[in-house]
């Protein structure tokens, strides 16, 4: 488990904080979603967790006390396009000090995880967007990390690759890995994450289990009635002096919650 307490960060020369006393709890062995519009502070938070920058205030507490093996899978294609898939994986394995005895097996596992076996000899620069995303992800798994930071890992891929990547990520907790997953795609977070936090302008607007967040409302009461009985229900409510404030069909989804909390305005 990771406990983030009152974490703050301000970029040099910035007028406001990128992170403003952010407190979060990321459960171990789960996929935790981090949602927020552009400029919300997601990448800043990931940068601190990855060790790329030091927080201006607050603290991080990892369960067990020691920092686990953390791997970052950035938004960018962070590998060498002139090298083949295998050469990239070998390089990043060696840089991370993967022991020679384990190296070949780790390479195999990473390639199998990302479905790269058929293109291992091809230069990464010649890959499609989906293959590049999968290689980017595979590199993150080489050192067998405990904690994975996935920053929008499905941007710009076709539906098939996206589905493949999501299935692969969904299987990670079964291997004991904790995943912090950021995305703009609500349905992805809804599909993958048991719990999540919504971040905006450096602050946590909401966090908790997905089902609890979706169930939470704004003080109004939702009733599920058969559609065919709507008129009868309205008449009964009116007779009892109960106004109908809004009408929705179906359940509240994550996107509706997100837009309600972040107030729909453009951020860049």
């Amino acid at each position, binding site marked *: 488990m990771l406990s983030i307490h009152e974490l703050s960060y301000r970029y040099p020369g910035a007028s406001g904080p990128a992170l403003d006393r952010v407190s979060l709890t990321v459960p171990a062995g789960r996929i935790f979603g981090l949602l927020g519009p552009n400029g919300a502070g997601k990448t800043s938070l990931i940068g601190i967790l*990855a060790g790329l920058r030091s927080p201006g205030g607050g603290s991080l507490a990892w369960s067990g006390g020691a920092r686990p093996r953390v791997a*970052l899978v950035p938004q960018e294609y962070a590998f*060498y396009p002139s*090298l083949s898939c295998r*050469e990239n994986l070998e390089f990043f394995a060696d*840089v*991370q000090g993967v022991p020679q005895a384990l190296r070949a097996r780790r390479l195999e596992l990473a390639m199998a995880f990302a479905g790269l076996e058929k293109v291992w000899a091809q230069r990464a620069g010649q890959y499609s967007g989906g293959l590049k995303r999968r290689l980017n992800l595979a590199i993150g798994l080489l050192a067998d990390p405990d904690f994975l930071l996935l920053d929008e890992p499905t941007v710009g891929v076709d539906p098939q690759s996206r589905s493949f990547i999501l299935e692969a990520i969904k299987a990670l907790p079964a291997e004991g890995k904790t995943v912090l997953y950021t995305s703009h795609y609500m349905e992805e977070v809804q599909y993958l994450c048991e719990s999540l936090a919504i971040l905006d302008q450096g602050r946590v607007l909401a966090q908790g289990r997905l089902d609890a967040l979706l169930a939470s409302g704004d003080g109004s009461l939702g009733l599920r009635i058969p559609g065919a009985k709507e008129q009868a229900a309205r008449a009964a409510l009116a007779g009892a002096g109960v106004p109908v404030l809004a009408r929705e069909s179906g359940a509240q989804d994550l996107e509706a919650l997100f837009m309600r909390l972040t107030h729909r305005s453009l951020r860049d």
Partner: protein
Amino acid sequence: MHRLFALWRKEILALSRDWHGLLVLFAMPTVFILIMSLALKNAFGPGQAPRFDYLALDRDGTGESAALLAGLAEAENYRRLDFAGDEPALRTRLARGEASFGLVLAPGLGRAVADSEAEPRGLVEILAEPGANAQALALLRAEVQARLGRLRLKALLTEAGQEDLEPARLDALMARAAVSTRYLPGAGGAAPTSVQQSVPAWLVFSMFFVVIPISTLFLTERTQGTLARLKTMGLPAWQLFLGKFGPFFLINQVQAVLMGLVGVYLVPRLGGDALRLGESWAALGLMTLAVSCAAIAYALLIAVLVKTTEQATTLGGLSNILFGALGGIMVPKFVMPEFMQELTALSPMAWGLDGYLKVFLRGGDAFSVLPQAGALLGFALAAGALAVLVYRFKGVEA
């Protein structure tokens, strides 16, 4: 060490697939050496000067003026073209660039030369076309003066009763053999050639051109998030920089060997002079090591300073050209005026070139190039330390 090998392997693989970068590092200096060695072949050493054409208008028409022109015809580096016309016609042909110089022998030249009491003035006017070589003009003037002096001497001796003097006796009287020239041992006792200047100059220049691949590769790593990823993998700055240093040091050594081979074997096959490598392999090795360290450290500094590949190629390329122009790469230092020669000390390329020239031309040993090698290694340390500081300050993110 395992990490360093991985970094070196990656860099070499990436470089070996970058044909444009390799072309800049190997083909460019080879072409420069060939062109400059052959183009400047005649600008170095005696007996290799180009021939300059001149026209002559003899308005005196005496035996003395004819003897003067006949004497000039013996001059090795000047060739008289056929001309029959007046002075305006001569000026017209000069203006068309048909010849570099025009000699107008004034009426009365013969009488003035023969008269020992006369103080000859304005006997020969040398007209030069606008693009004529100033040194060639000065040499032609000296040649004409010497020939006139010879005629005057002969006239004086005739007046003194010594007629029909042998030309050899006249030469002896004018002490023509009194002065000789000789280059000191160090370059095999021979005169410096254009290839001796071109090879070290363009080798130093090309070694500094690692700035382009180093800075563009580094920027690609930064903008693609690879540097950030490497940092999260625990790669410290010094290892990252050493990871760049190793392969490019190797490339610099290959450049040095290749340019040496071009100078020794290829230039002579194309009609130029062969490069002589001096007498000290240790001195050559020390200079190559020092120039390489300076070039790579400078490239790393540029790489961490710039934000875009456009900035990298502009700042890296332009600063290299500036270093080259200032450092005597494009224009040899010895043809620069004194204050410009002093300015060359500002360019690390000049330190490298001075060191190489000590070995190639003066037979310098490793001890003799210590000042140049020391300056370059000091520059490398300063630039490398500054690069690490800037890298730490700016961070790894784009």
